[in-house]
C-alpha cells in the first residue's frame, strides 16, 4: 500500500467514527498535531498546580486545607496521565518523558495563559477552581469525542475529577460571596483579574489553519468561539446571581444571533505571554518546575542506579 492509499484508509476510518490507537498507523501530521495538543495539555495541568499550591499552606480551615491538597494532587495526576499518552506518541519521534519536561523548562512547549497569571489572594484560589476549571471542563468535555482513543479515555477520567474541583471552587466562592464586606471585595477583585485571561483561554475567534486541520482529523470537533459561547451561557448568569459584576461594560446577549457580544481581550499581550513566557508569574513558576526536575535529578538517577543493583 502506498502512502496516499494508507492516508485515504485512515481518513475513512475517521469518517466511520473509529478511534485511532497508539499502535495504529497514523499520518505524521496527525501525530504531530496530537502530540502538540496533548503535550500542552499535560504541562498545563502540571503548571496549573502552582497558582493554587501557593494557597495550600494558607487555606483558612482544615476542610479547605484537605480539599485544596487533594485538588492540587489531582492536577499533578492529570499531568501524569497525559504525559503517558504523550510519551507513546513521542516515542517514534525519538523523544522521552525527560525530553517532554525539558521542553517546558526550556520554553519549547507552551502552557495555558491562565497559569502565567498571579493568584495574590485566597479568593483567587476559589476563582481558579470555579471559573478556570469550569472553562477547562468545557474545553475537555468537547474533546471527549476526539478520534484518538487513548486521549479520549484519559479525558473521561479527568472530566469526572474536574467537576469535583469546580464544586470545591464554587464552595469557596459561595462562602466569600455570602461573607463580610472585605471578603466580597476580595472576590470581586479576583473576578476582575481573571475575566480577561479567561476570555483569551479559549483562543482566537477565527479558525486558524492548524485548528482547521485538527477539525479535519476529528481531533477536535468544536471551534474556539463555540466553546467560549458555551462558557458564557453557563457562567454569566451564575456570576451575576452572586451579586458580582463582570468587568466588561459592553458585554451583552444578542438575542437575534443567539450569542454573547464581548470585548475582545488583548490578543497580542496574552499571545506574547504564552509564546515567550513573559507573564507576571511565568518565570517564577517555570523556576519551580526546574527545581523539581533539575535540582532533583540526583534522586531519579539514584533510583535508577538502585534498580540496576537489585538482583532481578
Amino acid at each position, binding site marked *: 500500500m502506498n502512502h496516499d492509499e494508507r492516508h485515504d484508509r485512515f481518513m475513512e476510518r475517521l469518517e466511520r467514527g473509529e478511534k485511532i490507537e497508539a499502535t495504529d498507523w497514523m499520518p505524521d501530521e496527525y501525530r504531530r498535531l496530537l502530540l502538540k495538543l496533548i503535550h500542552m495539555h499535560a504541562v498545563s495541568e*502540571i503548571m496549573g*498546580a*502552582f497558582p493554587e*499550591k501557593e*494557597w*495550600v*499552606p*494558607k*487555606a*483558612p*480551615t*482544615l476542610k*479547605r*486545607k*484537605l480539599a485544596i*491538597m*487533594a485538588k*492540587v*494532587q489531582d492536577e*499533578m*495526576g492529570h*499531568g*501524569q496521565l497525559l*504525559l503517558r499518552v504523550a510519551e507513546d506518541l513521542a516515542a517514534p519521534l525519538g523523544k522521552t518523558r525527560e525530553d517532554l519536561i525539558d521542553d517546558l523548562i526550556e520554553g519549547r512547549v507552551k502552557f495555558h495563559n491562565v497559569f502565567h497569571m498571579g493568584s495574590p489572594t*485566597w479568593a483567587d484560589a476559589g476563582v481558579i477552581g470555579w471559573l478556570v476549571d469550569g472553562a477547562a471542563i468545557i474545553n475537555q468535555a468537547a474533546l471527549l469525542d476526539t478520534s484518538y482513543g487513548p486521549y479520549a479515555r484519559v479525558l473521561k477520567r479527568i472530566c469526572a475529577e474536574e467537576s469535583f474541583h469546580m464544586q470545591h471552587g464554587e464552595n469557596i466562592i459561595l*462562602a466569600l460571596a*455570602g*461573607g*463580610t464586606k*472585605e*471578603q466580597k471585595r476580595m472576590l470581586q477583585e479576583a473576578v476582575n483579574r481573571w475575566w480577561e485571561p479567561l476570555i483569551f483561554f479559549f483562543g482566537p475567534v477565527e479558525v486558524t489553519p492548524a485548528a482547521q486541520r485538527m477539525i479535519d482529523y476529528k481531533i477536535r470537533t468544536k471551534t474556539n468561539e463555540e466553546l467560549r459561547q458555551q462558557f458564557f451561557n453557563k457562567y454569566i448568569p451564575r456570576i451575576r446571581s452572586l451579586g458580582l459584576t463582570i468587568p466588561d461594560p459592553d458585554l451583552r446577549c444578542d438575542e437575534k444571533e443567539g450569542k454573547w457580544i464581548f470585548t475582545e481581550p488583548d490578543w497580542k499581550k496574552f499571545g506574547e505571554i504564552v509564546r515567550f513566557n513573559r507573564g507576571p508569574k511565568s518565570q517564577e513558576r517555570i523556576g*519551580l*518546575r526546574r*527545581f*523539581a526536575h533539575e535540582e*532533583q*535529578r*540526583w*534522586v*531519579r*538517577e*539514584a*533510583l535508577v*542506579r*538502585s*534498580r540496576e*543493583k537489585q538482583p532481578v
Partner: protein
Amino acid sequence: MIMETADQAAQNPGCRRALAELLYQLADDELCLGHRDSEWLGLAPDIEGDVAFSSIAQDEVGHAVFYLGLLHELGEESPDRLAFFRKAEERKNAVLLEQPNGDWARTMVRHVLYDAFDDVRTEALVNSSYRPLARGVAKIRREEHYHLLQLKPWFIRLARAGGEARKRVERAVGEVWSEAGGFFSLGDEEEEMIRSGLIACGSEELARRWEMRVKPVFDEAGLTWPGLPPAPGKDGRRGEHTEDLTELIRTMSEVVVTDSAARW
C-alpha cells in the same frame, strides 16, 4: 477503667488532663508533618512521587483532624480554632516535625523515623482505655502501614544507590538525630497516661521498640546505626519550640486571621 465517652473521661480530672495532653501530642505531630509534607506539592523529584507523597500529606492532616475532633468532644475548642489559633508554646508536637523539609533525602529520613515512631505509639494505643481513641487508631494504623510500605523502600534505595544520594542521606541522618529523641517524650502527664491505661507503655519502652523497628531498616540500607538518639534540647511535649513553629503557624493562619469571625 474503660471509658466509652468523653463524659466518662471527664469524670476524673487527672485522667482527662492526661488524655487531652496525649491527644494534643498526636494531633500536633500529624498536623505539623502533614503541613510540611504538603510543601512538596508540585516539587517532588518526579510526577509519580509527587502524587504518591501528596496522599501521605493528606492522610497526616486527616489524622490531625480526627485527634482534634476528639479534643473538641472533651470540651476543647473547635478543631479549626485549635489548628489555626493556638500559640507555639501551647503546641505539643516534637520539635523535629516543625523544622523545614530540607532536601528530598532529609524529608525521607525524617518521615521514615517518624512513621516508625507513630507505628510504635499507635500500637500502644490500640487497647487504650479511651475507646474512641482506640477505635480511631485502629483505622489510622491501616493507613500508616501504607506510608511505611511506600517510604521505606525510597529511603533504602536512596541510601544504597551510593554517590550523591547516599551522601545526602548520611548528612540528613546526622542532622535529624539530635532532635529525633523528642518523639519519645510524653510530657508532664506520662505517669497519669499509663496509670489510666490511656497508653500501654512509657517513653523509654517506646524508644526501645522504635529502635527495634528502625535499626533493621538502617542495616538494610547499609547505614551505621548511630545508637538511640539523645534527649532533645527542646522538649516539644512541654511546649518548648523553635522559631520554625512560629513561622509555620504564621503561614498556616495568614488568611484566617484577617477576619477570625468570618466564615471561610
